[in-house]
């Protein structure tokens, strides 16, 4: 009597319980396999350097590095076709409408946008690149980096890099290692929703460099994010300005400020002007780069100017003795100026 009962129980277990445990295991395994890598579209980087060589040198390095990351990238040809279809010409930023269309077509989680900011291929080369990761659904920038590398020699000529290809490779590795590190932490949004959402109106350009305004805008965006601010993708603001037929540089009127606040939830706007973005002449050690910028921080709710300042930064500002501490990299001096401006505006606004 006991034996049939035992056999029945074992049969019952074998038929109904064990397979579910197996399925759970399989399910668990399936879950871990099905956890998707984010689906990412990499828009062609904008070239602010004024030289075609910058794009032809740096773009393949960026593509190769991205292909090694654990993202599911949209195929380049498919993306280009979509950009043509939707007539998206300015790939340095993306507006809400374009983002929605591309996200729907490709099932996107993020966009990667970037620019080649500085590029010199002299005896001492310099490369500066900016990259940002934008969440497709909210158009908030979740990660950004603006970095530059200068091939200067250290003491006794040690560490000098004279190949611009090598310099660009090191810079790209540096930038995307930072992105991988952030991705590994899951892009946890540490920025409190209680902090205001910032928008940047592109900086005005009063220099001879035709892209100085755009370059400084990307530097300031990266600085803001690295200090924990929430930042709206500049393309979203530009899309709104375009709808109202306004091409804004370095200023904004109360109507558009109100729209940014009411429609996009922007709390503060930062804008300014680049008065000087002067590199050091090649081979001249007595002249250093000079950057002069001014900026304002506005309250988007009432249009009040919360803070204003202007910064002059030169490569010899940190000079100690025997020309130690002198900075010849325009990218580094520019980023220091952007950081100083943000520090002053943030301090005055509190």
């Amino acid at each position, binding site marked *: 009597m006991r034996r049939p009962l035992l056999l029945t129980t074992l049969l019952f277990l074998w038929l109904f319980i064990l397979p579910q445990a197996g399925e759970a295991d399989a399910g668990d395994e399936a879950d871990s396999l099905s956890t998707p890598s984010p689906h990412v579209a990499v828009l062609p980087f904008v070239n602010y350097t004024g030289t075609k060589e910058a794009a032809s040198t740096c773009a393949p390095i960026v593509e190769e590095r991205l292909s090694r990351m654990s993202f599911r990238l949209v195929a380049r040809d498919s993306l280009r076709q979509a950009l043509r279809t939707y007539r998206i010409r300015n790939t340095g930023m993306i507006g809400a409408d374009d983002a929605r269309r591309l996200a729907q077509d490709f099932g996107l989680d993020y966009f990667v946008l970037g620019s080649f900011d500085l590029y010199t291929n002299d005896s001492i080369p310099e490369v500066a690149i900016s990259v940002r990761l934008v969440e497709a659904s909210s158009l908030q920038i979740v990660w950004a980096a603006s970095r530059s590398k200068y091939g200067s020699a250290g003491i006794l000529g040690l560490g000098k890099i004279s190949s611009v290809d090598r310099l660009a490779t090191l810079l790209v590795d540096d930038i995307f290692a930072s992105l991988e590190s952030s991705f590994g932490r899951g892009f946890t949004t540490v920025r409190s929703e209680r902090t205001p959402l910032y928008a940047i109106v592109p900086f005005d350009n*009063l220099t001879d460099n035709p892209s100085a305004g755009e370059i400084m805008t990307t530097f300031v965006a990266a600085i803001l994010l690295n200090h924990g601010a929430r930042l709206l993708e500049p393309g979203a603001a530009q899309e709104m300005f375009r709808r109202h037929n306004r091409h804004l540089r370095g200023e904004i009127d109360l109507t558009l400020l109100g729209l940014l606040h009411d429609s996009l939830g922007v709390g503060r706007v930062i804008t300014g002007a680049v008065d000087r973005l002067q590199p050091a002449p090649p081979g001249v050690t007595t002249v250093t780069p000079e950057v002069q910028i001014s900026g304002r921080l506005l309250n988007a709710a009432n249009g009040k100017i919360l803070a*204003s300042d202007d910064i002059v930064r030169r490569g010899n500002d940190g000079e100690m003795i025997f020309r130690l501490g002198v900075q010849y990299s325009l990218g580094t001096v520019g980023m220091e100026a952007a950081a100083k401006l943000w520090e002053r505006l943030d301090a005055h606004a509190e």
Partner: protein
Amino acid sequence: MKHARFRSFMLFAVALLMLAGCGMGPTVFLNREYNFQFVERVAVVPFDNLSDDQGAGARASRLFLSRLLASEAFDVVEPGEVSKALEKFATVRTSELTQEQVITLGKTLGVQGVFLGSVTESSSLRSGGASTNIVTLVVRMVETEKGMTIWSATHSSGKRGFFASIFGGGEKTQSDAMRACVNGVLSSLIH
């Protein structure tokens, strides 16, 4: 006696030369009968550029705005609002707005005073191995009730002092000269 007179004359001549090399402060007009307490909110109209240095007017405007904001002497209207209000005036030279236009601007922007200005000089002079950057600004404030000028200042900056002319050094960059000029102009209005 002759030696003493000669010495006195030489000292006087040197003193005159030193004073001449130091440069003059701003030339200022201030309407002392106007109650400046009435001016709480102002607008800065983009400065005209009458120099050969492209962009000098815009740079001077931005610097002036920045310094004015830093002084906290007035509430300042965002430049974007000023640009929008100026669109209705088909004028090339903003420093030549008429009295009626200034009054209209004041009502549109809700300001009691408007700053107008020009960069009349922004140049670099070379002498031997040295260069001197000179900037000259003319700025005025117009009250928006009747369109009358209540303050104006003209200031040049960048000229080298007596000892710098003799012994060298003291060169200012263009941006330093512009900055010093703006500070000089504003210091005559705001202390």
